[in-house]
């Protein structure tokens, strides 16, 4: 129950994000979710897209450093306490969140939380055991 995520190295200079989105648009690749992590000198763009391999190939051909990693997507009701319920489980299990981001799906009833944990297998097992809904990449694209 993992979702493939694309990570792209961003040098801190103007026009880089625009260049990435241009390449994705030209190749008819749809972005489902994204986050940018930044430091003073560089950034990392993380993307969940409908065509992972094509995105990786075309961005790489465009001169970018691209990585593919696995993340966990948890679907929770879009209401107060939705995220808290997940993080409580994570904390109790002694897991660490390396980073996370979130989006609300089209119907507006559920939110999708994207996590990168230090111990992915343990996290998946724990969340499933507690009855959380984990989405696949295909399911995210179908939302």
């Amino acid at each position, binding site marked *: 129950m993992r979702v493939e*995520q694309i*990570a792209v*190295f*961003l*040098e801190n200079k103007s026009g*880089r994000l625009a260049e990435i989105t241009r390449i994705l648009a030209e190749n008819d690749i749809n972005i489902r979710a994204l986050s940018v*992590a930044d*430091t003073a*000198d*560089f950034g*990392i763009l*993380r993307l969940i897209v409908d065509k992972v391999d094509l995105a990786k190939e075309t961005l790489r051909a465009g*001169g*970018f*450093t*691209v*990585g593919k*990693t696995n993340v966990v997507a948890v679907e929770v009701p879009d209401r107060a306490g939705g995220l808290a319920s997940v993080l409580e489980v994570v904390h109790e299990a002694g897991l660490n969140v*390396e*980073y996370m981001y979130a989006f609300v799906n089209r119907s507006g009833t559920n939110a999708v939380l994207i996590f*990168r944990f230090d111990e992915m297998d343990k996290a998946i097992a724990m969340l499933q055991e507690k009855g959380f809904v984990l989405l696949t990449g295909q399911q995210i694209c179908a939302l």
Partner: protein
Amino acid sequence: MMWVEEIETLPRSGLESIQLKRLQALVHRMYDKVAPYRAKMDAVGVKPGDIRSLADLRKLPFTTKDDLRDNYPFGLFATPMDDVIRVHASSGTTGKSTVVGYTQADIDLWASVMARCLTMAGVTKGDMVHNAYGYGLFTGGLGAHYGIEALGATVIPMSGGNSKRQVTIMRDFGSTVLLSTPSYALNLADAMVDAGVRTEELKLRVGIHGAEPWSMNMREEVERKLGIRAVDIYGLSEIIGPGVAMECLHSERGMHILEDNFLPEIIDPDTLEPLPYGETGELVFTTLTKEAFPLIRYRTKDISRLFLEPCGCGRTLIRMEKVMGRTDDMLIIRGVNVFPSQVEHVLMGIDGVEPHYQIEVTRDGSLDVMSVLVEVSENIFSDEIKVLENLTKKIQAEIKDMLGVTCKVKLVEPRSIQRSEGKAQRVIDRRTI
């Protein structure tokens, strides 16, 4: 004033006959005692007896930094280690230092050439000399120190660093002469401003600056900010350290070479042919009087010019122009010699790092700042910030470890480093020299 007037004002013919006598003795000694150099002479079929005039110098093989490295650490010493009383070392191209040795006579010689240089800058025994060159393996601190003592002036052995304390001591002790790298002199000027010390409170009169390239603009800045006359000194550890050549207070351009000890040539770095006076090329030195570590035709890689026109001070010694650059890619960062190959060596030692890098040198205020740009390959890329940050810290620490220079490490996108004619441009020096 001169320290040894009878030598410094000799007519050329008198000086040249001293040089020839010393050169002939040197070549015999090298042939007898230094096997690697004997092998070089044998390879080109030159015997010590073939050196009959100074013009015959060109028959002798060159010595290069590679020779020093190949014979690391003591392989080129001409005396038994029992006679060597001190060693110094400077950074080498791939982590191996360049090691030099001195007998008691060499130390005395060094003190005397340094005293002669100080005298050229008007320093006398009445002076309080603030020596801010680094003490240690680097030749700057101790080389200057012994010269100041030989002159009979008072030396304050400050070494580098702790600028605030330097300023306090300079004011309280009444330092009249400052010895430091030019960039450190500017650093001290800033520290004075920070400490609220005005130049009128100081007794500083003259600054003697070397060990790194500096421009005329920088000289004016040093003179203005410290309220002193700033002069240039030249030296390199292989030849002896500071004390090879010195600008006098009369010279409009260039430094007098103490050529009764250090015989200079200018060569074309491509054809290796000696060039006439006035032409620009690579500076080459033969040490005429050193015992432990003499060198014949050592290629300094420094680009300069020699000229014989008489100087207002009355010295007949040949002068060399301010060094205009290097024939190799050596950088001098805050007085430390840095070769791009050393940086490459560090990068290649880190798992996954590809040799796509660039060194950018800038000046922040008066301090040199070295940034190392490293292209992020997929091998080292991560979706986690901390992994990339740890990588930059690791590179920074290893460069500091190897070179003794703190640098900034900047990760850049692949293929963003300029490549000219398919070859990467390794160094971008944005300092205005």
